[in-house]
């Protein structure tokens, strides 16, 4: 069974390399779907195994515990839905001549390798491998962000690669420090000292001073990659210039992998320096992210930048949940990772459609979506309400739990500020979404038919969004509870 961990990243990589040789678009789409479907089945098998027989380890490099399962599920699900969406989207783009036929193989290959690196990040037990995979994601996604080769695309790609590489190098520095602390605790003979499981086991014996500095470097490092304020500034640029499927993957999955890194280091820091230190830092950064994102959301004109800043806010909410800690807080944060990933991908797909249809990214010119594309318009409103955190959608439940945990944990002032910001963002988002959905469309906008594959992807995401809003199914609940225990190092 542990060989499954090796096969998992290999599948998309091999498909990616295979795609380099294929020229025809339809074949590329088919391969893309096949690769993601395979990855999804592997993840399900892995999940069943881990939940029944406990964590799985492979040759000291890879390991899969409950937290991994959660993130694997998210990456696989988003990969699959993005693949479905890409079918219709790519047909439209190629027809409109925006992407030449000859660059298709490169695009699809890059997507597969991008997903592969994300899978490795999440499955990695060795912190070094985690770092290498994270650097891999940065490189592949930078090329994807700059895929359009226009001035803004390249600018976004450059900012993305430079700022995140700086962040990642700080992450490496943090890893080095923690590895050093682990090596010294084990009397200088570091055989498994780089592995997360061993470090967590010996965490109480680590020297708190070193771990404290290491954790700060890792938090700022991986935080830059995740988009925590005030180091978030690359995120709106990169997410707004990337092609729609890539934006969905960036916002939905990549940010979560960075958060996965933060969760790993959070567990180590909790073990070494006690819960207060790591918790307060995460709480602070979470709150700062939510507060910083608010003004930008209110006065935003570009729809994709709006969604970018919204991702910053939701990453802040996850960090806020982790910072509050305790079984309920961590449970809520992990649930929120899932909820936000799904909802954000949906809204990015709808935004992509809207931009394609209305020919402009400026929200003032996107109007009357409900009249021009009724399905996309309804999904836009559903997604907007879900993002803003209203029942019966999933984000309301996780925000409710975060607030409950916060109040139970005695952070009343922080929660009050958090609630105020969430309400202001609610008003801003509904205002933007309302203006886009209602009203009369511009004369030039045509009410063309909506690609079926896009609608399938969106309805899949909307279904999960609504289902998680109404109930938390038992299997998911078990995974979340065990993941929370792993995160808290119990």
């Amino acid at each position, binding site marked *: 069974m542990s060989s499954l961990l090796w096969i998992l990243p290999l599948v998309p990589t091999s498909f990616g390399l295979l795609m380099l040789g294929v020229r025809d678009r339809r074949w590329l789409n088919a391969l893309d779907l096949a690769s993601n479907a395979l990855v999804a089945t592997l993840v399900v098998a892995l999940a069943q195994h881990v939940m029944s027989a406990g964590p799985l380890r492979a040759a000291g490099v890879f390991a899969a515990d409950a937290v991994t399962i959660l993130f694997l599920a998210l990456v696989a699900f988003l990969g699959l839905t993005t693949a479905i969406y890409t079918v219709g989207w790519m047909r439209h783009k190629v027809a409109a001549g925006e992407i030449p036929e000859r660059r298709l193989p490169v695009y699809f290959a890059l997507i597969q390798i991008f997903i592969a690196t994300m899978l490795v990040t999440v499955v990695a037990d060795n912190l070094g491998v985690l770092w290498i995979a994270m650097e891999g994601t940065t490189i592949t996604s930078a090329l994807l962000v700059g895929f359009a080769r226009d001035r803004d695309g390249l600018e976004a790609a450059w900012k993305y690669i430079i700022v995140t590489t700086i962040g990642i190098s700080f992450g490496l520095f943090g890893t080095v420090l923690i590895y050093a602390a682990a090596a010294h605790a084990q009397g200088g003979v570091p055989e498994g000292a780089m592995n997360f499981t061993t470090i967590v086991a010996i965490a109480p014996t680590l020297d708190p001073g070193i771990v404290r500095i290491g954790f700060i470097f890792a938090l700022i490092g991986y935080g830059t990659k995740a988009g925590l304020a005030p180091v978030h500034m690359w995120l709106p640029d990169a997410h707004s210039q990337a092609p729609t499927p890539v934006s969905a993957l960036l916002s939905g999955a990549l940010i979560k992998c960075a958060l996965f890194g933060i969760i790993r280091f959070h567990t180590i820091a909790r073990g070494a320096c006690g819960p207060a230190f790591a918790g307060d830092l995460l709480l602070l950064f979470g709150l700062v992210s939510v507060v910083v994102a608010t003004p930008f959301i209110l006065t935003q004109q570009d729809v994709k930048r709006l969604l970018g800043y919204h991702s910053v806010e939701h990453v802040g909410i996850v960090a806020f949940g982790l910072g509050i800690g305790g079984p309920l807080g961590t449970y809520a944060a992990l649930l929120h990772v899932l909820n936000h990933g799904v909802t954000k991908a949906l809204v990015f797909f709808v935004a992509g459609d809207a931009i394609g249809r209305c020919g402009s990214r400026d929200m003032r010119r996107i109007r009357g979506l409900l009249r021009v594309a009724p399905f996309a318009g309804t999904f836009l409103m559903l997604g907007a309400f879900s993002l803003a955190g*209203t029942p019966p959608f999933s984000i309301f439940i996780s925000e409710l739990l975060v607030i409950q945990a916060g109040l139970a944990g005695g952070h009343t002032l922080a929660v009050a500020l958090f609630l105020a910001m969430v309400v202001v963002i609610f008003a801003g988002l509904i205002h933007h979404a309302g203006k886009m959905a*209602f009203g009369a469309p511009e004369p030039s906008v045509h009410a063309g038919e909506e690609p079926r594959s896009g609608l399938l992807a969106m309805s899949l995401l909307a279904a999960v969004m609504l289902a998680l809003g109404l109930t938390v199914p038992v299997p998911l609940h078990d995974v979340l509870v065990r993941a929370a225990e792993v995160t808290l190092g119990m």
Partner: protein
Amino acid sequence: MRPDTGSSLMFAAYAVGAAAPIAAGWSTGVTRLLGHLGLLTGAVMGVWVAVLSLTQPDAPVVASGPALFPFAALSVSLDGLGAYFLLVISLVAVAAALFGPAYLRAHPTRSAAVEVAGINVFVASMALVVFAHDALTFLLAWEGMTLASYALVVAEGGEGNARAGLVYIAMAHAGTALLMGVFLLLVGRAESFDFYLIRQTAATLSDGERTLLFFLVLGGLAAKAGVVPLHVWLPLAHPAAPSHVSALMSGVMLKVAIYGVLRFGFDLLAPREGPLPPSWGWTVLILGATSSVLGVLYALQQHDLKRLLAFHSVENVGIILMGAGIALLLCRRGGACEVVAAVGLAAALLHTLNHAAFKGLLFLCAGSIQVATHLLNLEDLGGLGRRMPWTAWLFLLGAVAISALPPLNGFVSEWMTFQALVLGGAALKGAEGLAAIIAASALALTGGLAAACFVKAFGVTFLGRPRSSHAAEAVEVPLSMRAGMLLLAAVCVAVGVLPGPVLSLVDAPVRCLIGGPGLGALVTVRGPLVLSALGTDGGVTAVSTTAAAALFGALAVGVLAFVAWPRAAGRRLAPTWTCGMAPDSRFDYSATAFAKPLRFIFAALYQPKRTVERDTGVNPYVVRRLRWEGDVVDIAETQLYRRLLDGVMHVASAVRRRSTGSIHGYIGYVIGTLLLTLLAFGRA
């Protein structure tokens, strides 16, 4: 049939109604019919369940729903208070279900599916709020109610509706956030979402904490109930929805917020024993008084019929809060205060039912005017009385009821509120007593203004000459719409003339909230005839609305016989004398003119602005054309919201301008954050 099977049937009916669009395969006609049929059966079941559980309090509905969420079991229960509000909700829902199909056929929104599904989900979630017995169901239903009504408000598309919808949902959500904050504080302490445990922990709170929580909740609920400082969304949202939905929103949704105030004030946050903190009662009383006076003052200057009615909802919510305020102030103080508290609470509850009835009726009449003339601006209507006799008489009945004039239901609940205020004033003595009397005079002022406003609304719309071609060609609305209106009118007359039975229904919630003897012993209801409240020191204050109505009826018949007796000189029709000029609609008194004296007297509040353009042509003394344009300012909106909004947007754009696009700035932030965090947290 036991109440809990009844209630599950009710929710099933609403579910069928909501699912109608899917089942009916998108054909508009069938969707509408099936949807409204579902709504009707659901509402009728609701009335049945409510009456059943009110009359036999020993069969409470207690059920725990499916364990949707592992951390919170959804539980449902219906006590006296819940049942009474269920009655109010279901009653207006029946009328709306009757009124709906024809209205939507004549005045369709963009998609039939949204209309039907929206209204069913809306009514179902309101019913679920009063059924909720744990925090999570309450919040889910509360937000579901807001979402469904938002969908209905924006269903008709168009820019105006979208903006109205936005303001509405933004304020409603702010209210819910406050509510969620308080609930979760309590849940955090009680470690469970269930109301029973929340009640236990709330009882152990210190008075300061309890009052802080109550004011937070009051803020959240006031935003939803449309109390004055937070009422700005109400005149925007209610007119934007289809009329039968406006009736539901105005008549019923505001009451769900009142249910929240009562549930928190008397039940959830109340201390185990001893009187409630006085600050609660005073705040609610003062909020009530200001809401009622300002609500009706702003209503007077409105010329869109539905906006006028929406502002009146603010006024009537104020009157209900006055009753509730006096009850909060005096309950659990024993002796005479107990009597007055019971009367005050009964007045508030009865007025909830009355307002739902006559406001629903008036909104349905506005809907039928909208169907007949596609107009709602009073200045374009006129002369509809001859063309739409049914709607005219029903509107008049509603107007008399809302102006609290005998013999209809408005008078009964206003009379009880007056009793509560006066007897409360007598019992309180001193400055507090005086304040109660002032509140009573505010209530009287509201009554007077409401009468003036509805004479204007009724007179300008239905009497005199039609002011537009649409108004001239108006035709009476079909029977199904009139059925809805007649039902509510019947309720108004019934409660007005025979308050006995309804007061026995009000007895259950009063005893559920205040305990003690409840209303029975205090308000001697000898059969349907007599309604009286014991005076503080023995004097019996009694009025029998039935006897008064009977006397009035007899006298009216007598005088009619005398007047209608055929006279020798007979009768003649002739045009109205307008000093020799040919009479036409421009002679009639317009709504603006009618409200002019009051605009002049209350100028400080209105700050009226007007511009007059005289087109005199050659001779300056002969005015060929005069154009008058006037506007009244809603102070709450301009001072409070405009300033708040502009402030937030100003700060937001200032922050946004500061962010440079250069990569050097980004890197600078990364280094800066790292250094600061290292310095702050680096050392142990």
